[in-house]
């Protein structure tokens, strides 16, 4: 059985080398005088979408305490199992988190914790520059989560699907 060689019968006017090269050169020359599209990253930054899901942030009440009531919904809903929560109760019967840790390494930034939170306490934030020198540094405890100051993600609103 012979090899089936397919032949593209191009019009002969389309097969050239020198003229095609000249055409290519005019294209590269044109691009030489175009503005570069690069964003000079550390100096310039892209504006993030209002729904950007990045590093977490815990919101606080007026007296500076975390809003969290340790209901346990976020560790339950978390698909990556990255939230560690140990609930406590004070003498008045108010629940508060004894331990609240998020492992940003395990987190997949789905934003379910923010969606499920009844107190609007835990949020994913509009922030992405979160490099660390050690693995331990990526486990954010409650103190660190409340100390974050970056803006938080605005959730999608079914009544206003385009965010206007």
């Amino acid at each position, binding site marked *: *059985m*012979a*090899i*089936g*060689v397919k*032949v*593209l*019968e*191009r019009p*002969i*006017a389309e*097969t*050239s*080398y*020198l*003229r*095609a*090269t000249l055409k*290519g*050169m005019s*294209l*590269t*020359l044109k*691009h*030489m*005088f*175009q*503005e*570069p*599209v*690069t964003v*000079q990253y550390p100096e310039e930054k892209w504006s993030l979408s209002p729904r950007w899901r990045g590093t977490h942030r815990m919101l606080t009440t007026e007296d500076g305490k975390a809003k969290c009531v340790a209901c346990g919904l976020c560790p339950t809903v978390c698909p990556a199992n990255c939230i560690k929560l140990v609930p406590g109760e004070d003498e008045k019967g108010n629940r508060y988190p004894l331990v609240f840790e998020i492992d940003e390494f395990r987190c997949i930034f789905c934003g379910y914790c923010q969606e499920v939170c009844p107190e609007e306490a835990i949020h994913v934030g509009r922030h992405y520059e979160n490099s660390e020198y050690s693995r331990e540094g990526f486990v954010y405890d409650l103190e660190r989560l409340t100390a974050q100051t970056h803006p938080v993600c605005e959730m999608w609103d079914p009544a206003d699907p385009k965010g206007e």
Partner: protein
Amino acid sequence: MTLPIVALLQASPPQSIVVFLVATVAKMLIIFTIYMVGVALLTLAERKISAWMQDRHGPNRVGKGWLQPAADGVKNIMKEETYPDDAYTPLFVLAPAMAFIPAMITWAVIPWGAPWDSPWGRIEMSIASLPIGFLYILAIGSIGVYGIVLAGWSSNNKYSLLGGLRSSAQMVSYEIALGMATIPVLLLAGNVSLNQVVEGQAGLGPLSWNVATCTLAWLVFLIAAFAETNRLPFDLPEAESELIAGYHSEYSAMKFSLFFIAEYANMVTASALMSTLFFGGWDIPFTSWDNVAPHSALKTLATTALFFGKTLFWVFFYMWIRWTVPRFRYDQLMALGWKLLLPAMLGYIVVMATAILLLQRAGFAPSSLPFSGALLGLNVVIVLALLFVLDRGRIVSPAYSRLDRRNLDKLRAVTPIRRGTEAAEAGR
């Protein structure tokens, strides 16, 4: 026996040996310095131009980008030099120098400016104005391949060896086309001295440049020069996608850098040669101000600036092509060199020699208006024929071009042999 050699090597015997020696040493130092700094800056220029052509910024961190060559140099000097266990050390060490030196010493004969009548006597603006200038360049150019071949061989690495082999085949093939392309130029000049070639192109402005009177030769020279300097689209010896880095896969630190310097030095030399042979060299067109006495320093500087301007344009042209055209396949490269450029040049030499002879018989002086005009007309016809008749997928056959009917039948007749029994049957 010594006299003819002296006559051959030195066109105009110097008035004073002391002035000659001092001037030569000074010229060597100046040219070497300009050359090395220029080559360093060219690495930056290449990166910048490539970036602009791809809508990027390019290096802009070290001193706004200007100190990038210095940073590269410091990095390469500080880096560890590795020697592969199986490399043949003497040749491994020698090869970078062998690549670098021929590229440098070609410059010795290239005239870069009008002579200067200094208070101490006339000083020629070339380090050694050899009467056999062009032959010297061809001879030195052939040595250039040794650096790459030895690097490939002594590394004891299959990719390096393949790169070295490719480069030797490529450079030997294209050297022939390169030499052939310059013959029409030398026919017009009637001499192999580069000074004479430049003088022959003065007079009518761009019309008397050899690019107008031997256009096809210029085109072939351009292509062959790309192949000789191993630049894209002919960088088969390096061919990152196939051979890692080809002949310099095993090199590190400053030795690797030296191959880079050699590449850029070769590029500058080829560009200077192209300006000299085909674009009037240092001569300022439309005026004879620079060709007549008194040869003041101003004239020297003006012509030098013009010459370096032309050279830099061709260096830019090299980079422009590099960031436009993809690499050739090896068989396409060889077919282009042997099946197209060489026969085309052989035919072209005959045509040009006949035309020059007929024009001279008809009583037109060389580099007069009808003489150059007639040659220009002839070349325009040849180039148009090349572009619109020959260039139909036949010059080089790109992957998307039509296959030759003959090759197609051959391909279709091939039977795939997969199993041993079938192989045995086919053998029988």
